[in-house]
């Protein structure tokens, strides 16, 4: 088991490299999908958690809080990953216009890729952090956080914008820009 910040940092790096390979014109559409996914999950989380918990307790009456946390964490993890996968594998929302040539275009692709990497990796980390790192019970990650990880957790996307409302701002503006063409 490695350090959790290296684990999620690697995910962010891979997504950044994908952004570099794909170009920022395509990555911007994915940014929009990622932000929508974050908004939706934050919006439904408080409303959905009691229902999910009740459903879990109906199937598994024995009180096992760690298993319940693992279920909730995995539910949001899977929902988020499926949405993001659809954004990457499916039809991509694109913004009209050509992207800048190298080297500025490459730097912008890296920048947008890094934003997407931060949003995706940060969200995956958040759904581990908020449910007490349930994957550690499977031995996948270490529950012990280093001082660096403790500091980085404060800057996860959902910790910076804990309410769903502020996420509407980028969604609305990007949507307007997409419609306007």
């Amino acid at each position, binding site marked *: 088991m490695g350090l959790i*910040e*290296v684990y999620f*940092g690697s995910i962010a790096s891979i997504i950044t490299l994908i952004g570099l390979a794909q170009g*920022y*014109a395509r990555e*911007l559409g994915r*940014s929009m999908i990622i*932000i929508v996914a974050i908004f939706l999950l934050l919006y439904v989380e408080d409303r959905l958690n009691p229902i999910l918990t009740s459903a879990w307790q109906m199937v598994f009456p024995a009180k096992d809080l760690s298993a319940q946390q693992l279920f909730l964490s995995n539910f949001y993890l899977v929902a988020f990953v499926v949405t993001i996968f659809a954004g990457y594998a499916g039809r991509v929302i694109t*913004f*009209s*216009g*050509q*992207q*800048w040539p190298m*080297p*500025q275009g490459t*730097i*912008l692709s890296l*920048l*947008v890729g890094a*934003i997407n990497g931060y949003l995706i990796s940060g969200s995956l980390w958040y759904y581990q952090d908020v449910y007490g790192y349930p994957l550690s019970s499977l031995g996948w990650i270490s529950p012990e956080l280093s*001082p*660096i990880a403790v*500091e*980085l957790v404060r*800057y996860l996307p959902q910790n*910076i*914008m*804990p*309410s769903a409302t*502020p*996420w509407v*701002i*980028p969604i609305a*503006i*990007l949507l307007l*820009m997409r419609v306007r063409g």
Partner: protein
Amino acid sequence: MSETTPGTVAFVLYVLLFGWIGFRRGLFRELSVLTVSVGGFFLLQQNQGLALDIVRQVLGIIFGVISIGAKLLASLRAGGADGGQEPVYTLGPSEWLSEADQPTVSFLVWSGLLLLTYMLTNKAIPDNQSSSGLLAAIIGMGNGLFYIPTFAPRLIAFIPEVGVASVSTPGTGVQGFLRSVTDMMESNFDNIWEALGPQQPILAAIALTVLLVAVISTLRRGQN
């Protein structure tokens, strides 16, 4: 008007100034500076010993040239090829650069590198390759924000009651790099971030939106 108002106004003016510099200099130049300043800062933080060695080597060459020149001058004055009877003393770089000077030397190297990058990018990158715009202004502001935690502790070291922490934490590898980044977050960016108080989420949302809109605006420009 609260006690923090002058500070807030100064901060806004400072950020606007760097935004304006970024707008004037253009995106490519500002990105080059950002890469050199951020990359150079963290690299030098982690390799302070290496920076000191390189500076010593460079100074050794300079001192060597000065020493040869001094000997030559002395020999000319004495009128003989052996340089006369009086020995010429020159100070070696290791005599006035000790291991304790590592943070100072690495900071000075970084400052010199930054200044050089500003001057070189002005000369080497043509105007038409470094387009002005919102994104250039944002990157310029980013540069300005990065300079606060790097320069401020040194500038106000004479005023201890201000209490801004130093960010010079040497380390190696990925851990050292992350430690430097988180040190910076903890010490100074953290202060700025905390000062935003309850406005943090909305300002973060606006910052993310402006950044993405700025990138999208480059697509439109490319269409023309």
